[in-house]
């Protein structure tokens, strides 16, 4: 565990990173998602090359494809090294993001709902997100890319914990 912390670039914040990494298949999920996004960019550019065929369209295609490929190859593993989560009996704590890092902490006592989500790609890979909503419009904490079983179990435990906590969570 400690080795993980050292291996990851230490964030410039006097908070230790959350304890758990997301599921390794999340890298594949983020890659596929990025590749789909890349396709959306490349296909019209390719069409432009075929229709217009001037030098600058070819250059545009080359640059788009190169940048996109670099993103698909480089960013998901980077994100995987950063993204972490932790749930204690008092709080939910996550760290996510590569260009803009985001630490989120929500106390269990203020949690109102716990949901799991699975997009089509996630279903393919057996992954799921867990979203913990508080009374605030801006306070939702999302744990992305857990194994589906773990996500369901986490949601169950969280729901039980929140039901055990009194108050109306505002």
């Amino acid at each position: 565990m400690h080795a993980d912390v050292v291996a990851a670039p230490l964030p410039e914040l006097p908070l230790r990173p959350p304890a758990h990494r997301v599921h390794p298949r999340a890298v594949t999920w983020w890659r596929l998602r990025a590749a789909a996004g890349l396709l959306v960019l490349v296909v019209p550019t390719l069409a432009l090359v075929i229709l217009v065929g001037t030098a600058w369209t070819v250059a545009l295609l080359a640059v788009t494809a190169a940048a996109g490929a670099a993103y698909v190859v480089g960013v998901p593993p980077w994100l995987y090294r950063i993204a972490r989560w932790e749930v204690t009996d008092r709080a939910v704590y996550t760290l996510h993001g590569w260009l803009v890092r985001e630490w989120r902490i929500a106390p269990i006592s203020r949690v109102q709902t716990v949901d799991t989500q699975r997009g089509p790609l996630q279903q393919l890979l057996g992954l799921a997100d867990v979203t913990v909503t508080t009374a605030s419009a801006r306070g939702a904490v999302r744990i992305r890319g857990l194994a589906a079983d773990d996500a369901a179990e986490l949601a169950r435990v969280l729901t039980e914990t929140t039901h055990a906590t009194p108050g109306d969570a505002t």
Partner: protein
Amino acid sequence: MIDTSPINDVWRRLDPRMLVVGPLKNLLQLLPFAVVVLLTGRSSDLVQVWMAVGGAAVVVLAGVLRWRTTRYRITGDRVELRTGWLRRERRSVPRDRIRTVDLTASPLHRVFGLSVVRVGSASGTSGLDRSAQVDLDAVSTAEAEHLRQVLLDRASASAPTVERPATDIARLDWAWLRFAPLTFSSLAGIGAVVGAGFNLLFEAGIDPRDIGIVDDTARRVAAEPLWVGIGIAGAALLVVAVIGSTALFAERWSGYRLTREPDGSLRVRHGLLTTRSLSVSDERLRGAEVSEPLLLRAGRGAQARALSTGLREGGSGAIAPPAPRAEAHRVAGAALHADPTEATRTPLRRHPRAALRRRFTRAVLPAAALVAGAWLLDGWLLDTRAGFASLVLLPVAAWLAVDRYRSLGHALTARHLVTRLGGLRRRTVALQRDGVIGWTVRQSVFQRRAGVVTAEAVTAAGRGGYLVLDVAADDAVALADAVTPELLTPFLSDERHFRRTGSDESAARQDVPAPS
């Protein structure tokens, strides 16, 4: 006679006077249309008359149906509303989730002695969906007042409270009318005046160009050089804006009175034609905000708002009209049961130099890009002085950056987290420490190099989160840890790292003087 106790589990109808008011309101909205139809139609053309009569009949019928099908009841722990004939709707709000009760009476409602009751609550999920709100349009003003008291006063729901007088916090001072043109409502004022004017001309079937004076003036102005035309148009707009915004201010804020009710709730009443009354229960209040849009700030004015759960995100929550700055701070403090120097007016800690650099790059770079673009455009296409003129953007951007930096500040008082930011619209927010229900800390690549972060205190009230912009990373965590003591403690990195404070910071700990 109306039963004076509304908590009896009985389904009740809206006030029978709504049988008149409902259709009348709709008819009044249709009136301009009806007038046009009747005026433009030839007298022999009975079809149009019948259309108007038919339309009116439908409207009346709809009003009757609405009254017949709308019922509400207040039980020991819920407020329930049933509406609709073809599409039935049932809305139910737990009474312990009720945050605000809002009474509104349009002139028409007032003539018939009715008020609309709007019950705001924090719903289970997002707090923003419509189901969190129950509208009773309308009940008698006496019943509305009674409902307001009963719904906000959870503790003594069964036993009515002893009548104690409400204490005054603030009343309108007509000298504040001078702030009216300095608010954004001056833009709305232009809209209102121009809209009303054109509507009137249109209804009367007059084309403005047919009026001799107008046509004459337009011709004369057109004959002058361009800048004269622009000047005259600008001056005219200014006059309209001042008149319009002053009128709007007077309509909205005359009779303004902010009171602390016997049950502890905060109540703001105002309005000349349409009277409004907003009550915020004390235990639902999470903080207060003093907002200073640039123009208002230049005029040494400010406006106080309440941050309460159950107020819509877009809803203003204004508890005072635009008023002198000291008054706005006083009202914000009074709402929180705190001295202003313990709330929005507390001395704030300045943010690090990196914050100033970041304000500069973020303001000046886009301005520089615009200037470069203008020069390029000039060189290629036009032979104007656009490039040269655009240079003025640079000092403006620099000034905005410095001003935004000077706005930045935060502090922690005994009961509140106070944070201030914004240039074009400066906001000072005092958030109750208990009202903070989580933290989000963000750090971009650039912030990382500058060693700063943006911390967001998450809350159920107002906009949902309030930023402490560009503070040193250590300070942000120390602040969050101080506001919510047990929350972050298990996640703090080791003591040595946490205690590390650079020399930069001791310099950053100077206090910013409170705005005078």
